[in-house]
């Protein structure tokens, strides 16, 4: 009669040998190479922009104006109008999009719950993050510029349309992370829902929300397509963001990208360096805010 139990299995406690180990090593190396592959273009772009743009950057370049004709060599005039334009248009867009985005996220998370409207809004908001930015520009051109003319305000509208879904999505994620115990404790003390949201939930999530908003601002500052048809092309600074053609750093870079004149190209690189610096600073500040002030993060 054969024994019912089989012999105990031999457990091989050695590390994998031969081909298996080699394959593992190859795959790990490939993953590292993937990272290095990312470093190459990044380094290439940053080094080029810094090398070509640094020689043009000076205080008079950043604040001086007007933007000289394309034939004029670098050193005359400056990109001040474009810097001002970027700052004021992006600031206006932020003022419009961020509060509305946070409020929208508050609706989705606090008031909407599982109802169909909240699900639809959340879904549409995700869909809207995927809409190409040029469509936003065409939209604002059709309903605003054709009736009220070119202005920084039109550009700000287009950028706000772009930022709104991003802010909603990131604020929503941050609000969701706030533990329910905080809310329930506040309700137990008799606070109304609005009070709980504004005085308890929002401050708890504010770090993450601000960080998300800053990243949205960085994205908007770098966008060109929405501004293409909405702000026109001004050579001198236009402090009035609500009327009159304006200009912005991305528009100037786009206009100078194809010019054969060295002056225009130099100014284009200088503007590119300024723009990257602005976006970079915003990103760093966003990360600092997350690490120092975000109480709850993933």
């Amino acid at each position, binding site marked *: 009669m054969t024994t019912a139990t089989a012999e105990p299995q031999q457990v091989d406690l050695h590390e994998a040998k031969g081909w298996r180990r080699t394959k593992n090593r190859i795959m790990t190396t490939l993953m590292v190479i993937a990272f290095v592959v990312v470093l190459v273009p990044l380094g290439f772009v940053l080094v080029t922009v810094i090398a070509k743009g640094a020689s043009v950057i000076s205080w008079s370049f950043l604040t001086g104006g007007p933007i000289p*004709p*394309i034939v004029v060599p670098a050193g005359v005039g400056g990109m001040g109008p474009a810097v001002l334009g970027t700052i004021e248009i992006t600031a206006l867009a932020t003022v419009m999009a961020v509060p509305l985005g946070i409020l929208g996220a508050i609706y989705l998370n606090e008031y909407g719950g599982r109802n169909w409207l909240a699900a639809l809004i959340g879904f549409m908001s995700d869909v809207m993050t995927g809409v190409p930015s040029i469509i936003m520009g065409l939209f604002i051109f059709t309903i605003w510029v054709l*009736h009220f*003319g*070119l202005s920084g305000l039109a550009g700000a509208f287009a950028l706000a349309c772009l930022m709104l879904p991003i802010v909603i999505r990131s604020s929503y994620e941050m609000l969701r992370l706030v533990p329910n115990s905080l809310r329930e404790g506040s309700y137990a003390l008799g606070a109304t829902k609005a009070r709980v949201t504004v005085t308890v939930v929002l401050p708890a999530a504010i770090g993450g929300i601000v960080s998300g908003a800053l990243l949205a601002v960085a994205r908007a500052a770098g966008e060109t397509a929405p501004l293409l048809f909405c702000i026109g092309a001004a*050579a001198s600074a236009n402090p009035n963001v609500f009327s*009159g053609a304006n200009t912005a750093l991305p528009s100037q870079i786009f206009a100078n990208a*194809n010019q*054969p*004149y060295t002056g225009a190209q130099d100014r284009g690189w200088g503007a590119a360096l300024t723009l990257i610096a602005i976006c970079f600073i915003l990103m760093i500040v966003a990360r600092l805010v997350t690490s120092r002030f975000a109480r709850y993060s993933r």
Partner: protein
Amino acid sequence: MQLRFRQRRQRITAAGVAVVAMALTLAACSSSSTTTASSSTSSPAAGSTSSSAAKLSGTLNGSGSTFQTVYQQTAISSFKSVQPNMTVNYGSGGSGKGRTDLSSGVVNFAGSDSPIPSSEMANFKGKTVLYFPVFLGPITVSYNLSGVTGLKLDSTVLAEIFSGKITTWNNSAIAALNSGVKLPSTAITTAVRSDSSGTTQNFSLYLETAAKSDWTLGSSSTIKWPSTARAGNGNPGVAQIIKTTPGAIGYVDYADAKASGLSFASVKNSSGSYVAPSPQAASAAGNGITVDSNLTFHAVDSPEPTAYPITYQSWVLVYEKQPNANDAAMLKAYIGYLVGDGQSLLGNLGYAPLPSSLQQKTQAQLSKITG
């Protein structure tokens, strides 16, 4: 339970009403500030606005021909010392864009290298458009062929190159015009405009006029080039294609070609001499033109013996009837500068100023702008 549903419905309606109210107030606020699409918000000038020599203030927006870009930008910058409180913006984009922007009311003036074609006339809704010529300039035939300088071409050969019939540089037709020059067997790559362009329109007009039956692609701001042609955006785009592609040949305006360091071909004019592009040769072409009553004309294939045959021109287009007096005054001042004192800037930029008889007629037309 029923109460909660009603509450929810009430809330949604209230929210919808709030959104609509916000939109309406926004529209009402903005419509009360500007009633016209023209973006010249006129802050009343400190002095009188009746005489055009007084200090004007406000903004003018223009867009259009890339041929005019350099002149417009230079003129705008020096115009600042004439009228410090006026701001003028010029947005380039191509002659087609300029005409479109003018017809949709987005700009006050447009730069265009060709008169409004009949297909676009409907966009202007019957309003009279005035043409103010501002300068003349050569369209170079630039090429990239190492070791070859001083290429000579005529209209027939150009027509055949650009319609794709001649495909290599050592073709017998080219060699016949360039005896003694060693032409390589490189393939010819034609560089053309991808956007709607007055440069294209005038270049094709030259081919149509001078090469007659050899040119079958017509004359228009956008041409259906053979599929082997490489297209670029704006004059600088074409210049860049030529610069980076060995064996390329294309049409680029003089200023951009010179700035890109391209070699230009000498083209045979109607008197039989091979003329290289230059501002002087373009001025000579200006002497042979016949001008219509609305100041439109064609400078291509001029009968003058020293003229460069592919010379073209550019106009500033404005509506005769302006929406308000300040707009009219500003346009008179700026366009007056472009065709008057500003002409002295042209020499340095590589353009040819208007011939004096044409300049006088243009300055006289300024009084037609009313507001």
